[in-house]
């Protein structure tokens, strides 16, 4: 067992990372040791990253203990880079976190300056000056490269900057120079955000935190109102929204909601979240209240503004899509489905259930012409899985059963219609699957069933009978 992390007091005693626990105990017997929990560390870092969303939507994780924030275009909102950095560090300190940070034009340099240097804001012209005195480890290199460099006496980054590039590349590979260039801003290094970036977002910062659902909803409506202009500018309406609630103590809640049609109307956007809040009510712990509310438009689509006609038919469309949105927000998108036809003769493949929230707006109704092949009547209700039926006697070789036992009840067949032979689709199922012979059957009590025989009599293995649906 080795030490992987130390707090300030332990560092002051002189303990080091990678020291054995026994040795550390020998140095300081009263040492308090907690086992490392990588998952918990990760969750904490995720939580901090969520919290950092208040500064910029572009937050990337950096290893187990760092975050990159791309603050391009957002620092002026916080009174400049200096004020921004101070604000982040102060707030993190108040939360009990010991954080260090640096702002520069290159992620590599910020990394080096915050971990090995004094941090702060680094102007473009003094980048080299700041980097030069730092140790080579600050270039984010592999351990053996660092060791090899140190063995050669190249202890500071300044030594490498001054050294000729070609021999370095030959000896240590191109990676060293790439890292150096990245740290000096000569090479572009993108920061990949940990969450998809919203196409539009608006937020409201509150002096007094809100707790109640009504307040959250009315604020959502206000924020949506401020989004409306930008949506109109783009000629678009939002299909997927995300409401971010920043709790006072740093926890961040994200509530997603979808719409079946592109939405712009603030009232309807707020209504989406009113259902979602009902659904996630138990998970949403308001605590001491929320201080920032942000509404993101995750996905938007062209908004076809149609002229209202006199007969109010459009009003009906609106109420239908409102209903679909409400249900999908509250009970999940899968709860409400519409059926789409597919070109397949296998009964269970001929129809797919599509969430109504997607099915309504797609607008492309499958052409009915694809289903013009002659087929017998299909049952009103189809089982998800065909159920096995026990048939004791059937007309051989290809006739209907004389009677059958299904769910322990014996049904005597009075009339039957069929067979309709459906071969399975070889391009999906392969050639081993046996064809089905479907019969429409009426028993002596007037119940009508759709049963099929898989395989043929006289073949091995013997055929099996299944119940696949019921007729009215």
């Amino acid at each position, binding site marked *: 067992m080795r030490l992987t992390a130390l707090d300030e007091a332990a560092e002051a005693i002189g303990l080091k990372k990678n020291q054995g626990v026994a040795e550390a105990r020998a140095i300081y017997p009263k040492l308090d040791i907690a086992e490392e929990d990588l998952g918990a560390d990760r969750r904490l870092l995720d939580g901090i990253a969520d919290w950092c969303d208040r500064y910029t939507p572009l937050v990337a994780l950096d290893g187990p203990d760092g975050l990159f924030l791309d603050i391009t275009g957002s620092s002026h909102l916080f009174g400049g880079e200096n004020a921004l950095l101070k604000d982040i560090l102060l707030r993190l300190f108040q939360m009990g976190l010991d954080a260090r940070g640096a702002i520069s034009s290159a992620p590599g340099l910020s990394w080096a300056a915050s971990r090995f240097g004094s941090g702060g804001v680094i102007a473009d012209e003094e980048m080299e000056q700041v980097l030069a005195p730092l140790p080579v480890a600050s270039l984010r290199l592999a351990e053996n490269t660092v060791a090899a460099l140190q063995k050669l006496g190249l202890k500071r980054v300044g030594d490498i900057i001054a050294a000729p590039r070609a021999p370095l590349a030959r000896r240590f590979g191109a990676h060293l120079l790439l890292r150096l260039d990245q740290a000096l801003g000569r090479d572009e290094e993108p920061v990949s955000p940990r969450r998809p970036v919203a196409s539009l977002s608006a937020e409201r910062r509150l002096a007094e935190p809100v707790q109640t659902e009504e307040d959250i909803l009315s604020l959502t409506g206000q924020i949506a109102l401020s989004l409306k202009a930008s949506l109109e500018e783009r000629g678009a309406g939002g299909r997927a929204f995300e409401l971010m609630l920043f709790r006072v103590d740093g926890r961040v809640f994200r509530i997603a909601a979808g719409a079946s049609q592109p939405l712009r109307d603030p009232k309807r956007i707020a209504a989406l979240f009113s259902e979602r809040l009902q659904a996630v009510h138990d998970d949403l712990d308001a605590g001491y209240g929320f201080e920032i509310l942000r509404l993101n438009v995750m996905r938007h689509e062209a908004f076809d503004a149609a002229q209202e006609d006199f007969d109010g038919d459009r009003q009906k469309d609106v109420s*239908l899509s409102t209903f679909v949105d409400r249900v999908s927000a509250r009970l999940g998108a899968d*709860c409400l489905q519409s059926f789409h036809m597919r070109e397949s003769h296998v009964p269970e493949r001929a*129809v797919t259930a599509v969430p109504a929230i997607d099915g309504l707006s797609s607008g492309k109704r499958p052409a009915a012409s694809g289903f013009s092949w002659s087929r017998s009547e299909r049952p009103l209700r189809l089982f998800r899985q065909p159920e096995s039926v026990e048939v004791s006697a059937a007309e051989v070789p290809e006739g209907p059963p004389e009677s059958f036992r299904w769910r322990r009840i014996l049904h005597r067949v009075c009339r039957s219609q069929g067979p309709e032979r459906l071969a399975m689709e070889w391009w999906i199922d392969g050639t081993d699957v046996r064809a089905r012979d479907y019969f429409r059957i*009426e028993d*002596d*009590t007037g*119940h*009508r069933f759709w049963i099929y025989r898989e395989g043929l009599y006289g073949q091995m293995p013997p055929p099996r009978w299944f119940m696949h649906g019921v007729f*009215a």
Partner: protein
Amino acid sequence: MVQTPMTRERLFALREEIARLEGSSVAAARQEALAGESGHAKRKDSHRLSLDVPALDGALEGGLPLDGLCEIRSQLMRDAPAVTGFALALAALLQRKAGQDRSPVLWISDTVTAMETGIPYALGLADFGLRPERFLHAAPRRLEEALWLAETAVESGAFLVSILEVKGNPAHFGLTESRRLSLRARAAGRPLLLLRQSAEEEASSAAFRFLVEPAPAAIRFLPDRSILGGSIGNPVFRLTLEKSRNPAPLSLFLEWNPHDRQFFSVNKPEHARVPLKRAAHSGPHLSASADRPDSPQDMGPVLAFDQAS
């Protein structure tokens, strides 16, 4: 009959009072009164769905109410397809009569029933006379969600008809809930069909309750009136009107023609066998076994000794 304005006014007031008590539309009652004394036959306002079967329409006072709750039940789970068929036939009829109204039909299914008898199948719906592209299927997990869905759907007014399927008589769906749904439906002016699969008769706020049982299907005739062998014709339901304002119970066989989207009243199909109530154990009844004691002897002569003299 000559009426003074006074008595006329009084008559109107009384009629409205009765209409209010009966729960039917006051406006309709007023209209009827204005139209004269032509009686019930003339009351065919747009809020009724006429089934085009005179006997049934008469019992339903002009047709199925389109602004209220109507209950359809089956006795056994295996009769559920018949209930499904009748409800969907009503929906198809409504779609035909609605004409320009392109609102969809909503089917709120029940988890257990869906496992027992499957879920509505779009191709089958098309064969049954419905437009599957105007059909939405909702699968809520719990009864509370289903009730909320039904209420929201009726309230939104976006659906031609909402169909709520429930298994049995759940404790959480009593008179209060049915009254609530019924009031919503009336306020929104949209119909709600409540299907109770394998359920008992229960007091509810529905205006009508049907019991649907399957019946042997119709015969398919060839153009020369000969019977097409090896075929099963249009579905037939045995419909019993269990609850209505009409005290006489009504029971009839209805055939649904999916092609014309129309109901027909049929006589009891003569080719139909009586639904046999078969004994649990089939087979011939055997005579009493032979090796058991014979029927008990008369007791008296054995026990009662002659009196000692």
